[in-house]
């Protein structure tokens, strides 16, 4: 275990992920994340000088849709998932 994640980083990651972690959960997450970083370090040991950066695994490009309406009203299944609804809209805590 080479990587150590400080409390501050844990705090900020939790805020970004909108997670309220208990002390126990925080320690577990810290361990997981440290291991992930170690793994990244391991990958970084490979010499990639002549390898082009890649964002996709498959050599596929230009997958397009034509601009034709193909969907109807999908609101029934959307609303079925909504914990609270009004006038076919999802109700959430007031957000400005």
């Amino acid at each position, binding site marked *: 275990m080479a990587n150590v994640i400080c409390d501050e980083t844990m705090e900020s990651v939790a805020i970004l992920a909108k997670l309220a972690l208990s002390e126990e959960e925080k320690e577990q997450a810290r361990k997981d994340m440290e291991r992930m970083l170690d793994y990244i370090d391991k990958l970084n040991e490979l010499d990639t000088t002549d390898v082009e950066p890649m964002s996709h695994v498959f050599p596929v490009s230009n997958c397009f849709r034509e601009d034709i309406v193909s*969907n109807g009203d999908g609101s029934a299944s959307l609303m079925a998932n909504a914990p609270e609804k009004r006038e*076919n809209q999802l109700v959430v805590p007031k957000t400005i």
Partner: protein
Amino acid sequence: MSRQYETVIGLEVHVELATKTKIFCGCSTSFGGAPNTHTCPVCTGMPGSLPVLNRQVVEYAMAVGIAANCEITRCLKFDRKNYFYPDNPQNYQISQLYLPICRNGYVEIETPEGIKQVRIHEIHMEEDAGKLVHDDWSDTSLVDYNRSGVPLIEIVSEPDMRSAQEVIAYLEKLRLLIQYLGASDCKLQEGSMRADVNLSVREAGAEAYGTRTEMKNLNSFRAITRAIEGESARQIELLESGRSVVQETRKWDDGKEMSYAMRSKEDAQDYRYFPDPDLVPVIISEAWIEKVRASQPEFRTEKMERYKKEYGIPDYDIGILTQSKHMADLFEETVAICPLPKKVSNWLMVETMRLLKEKNMDAQDIRYSAGNLAKLIQMVEDKEINGTIAKEVFEVMFEQDTDPEIYVEEHGLKTVTDENALNRAVEDVIAANPQTVEEYRNGKEKVLGFLVGQTMKVMKGQADPALVNRLLKEKLS
């Protein structure tokens, strides 16, 4: 003597593209649907759904980039911008950070000092968010995802503008280019064009830029002008009193005509961008760029020159007609049927513009057809109706694209050409106004206008005023 300051402004302009479907799914983008009726698993962020890029979005973005003299990126990708907000169901917005579709362009604007270039840093494609309606009564917000996934382009300028006037000129220029391309209707009020203003001030002659603020929620040219003037004054005041400008995002309140801080740099979001693994790269070939370039329309400047040569109408008319592509098209189509360019131009510039203003509409909302306008003009030319009746008919036509021939027929508005009827009316008016007739005969010629008016009234407006004029003169001499 106080110091002189210079305002430095750069713009981020969001434009909603005029595609029929959303950027990554086949849901309709049309306005006015009941809440959430234009949604599917893709645009509501359901796990396992797969976005597929709308080809037309790429073409519109390229077309705008080419019109704005940009370089087109040959290999581009989409990235995820991560944040939590109820209007963003995926918890990330698909955008372009690393390889935007267009870069390094410029547009030219007219300023009192002459033509000026405003450089464009980049144009990227992204998706719009849903709409939140706040309910103060229950302290909740309602979410409608119909706009979620509607395609946008964001046009980012360099900080090249120095005044509100230059900003408006730049926005007008973009609006015209994009409208002429048919890539968007660019309506600020309706949100299909939105501008965020980045503004800083510095002492005149200084090299370095001052600390900037970003202003959001500006949805009219008037709000933009007020916000720029207000923010510039606020920053100068801070500097003059020895304080410094804080880098922050400010929200413009149109009602109060002031801005207030939303968030500062310290709590700036960390968006953790990364390439979207669901969307494959887009490779743009030279042939594709050329195809889009070849289909670019005639833009305003070229159109203005052609109108001058082809139609011989005044520059003033040309300026107004070409301010909207829809109006220019309507002009050309009408002239093609009824070759009286100045007459057509008058109906567009005067009556049409008056009604648009009265009804708070845009030129692109004009509903009547070229065919009907041509008919109306021809009827006036053939003296079937007079000018006053024509204006009445036009108002109806403006509302419902009514066929003027049918309307005039049905409402019996045709000019009465029966000379006997006219003669009778003229004689009645002469008999009923002995005093005026007396005045006329004593050399007060301008009272003739009153008698013409009285005759027109008797004829319910359906007479040729020139003919009435002549008949009156004959009978009174």
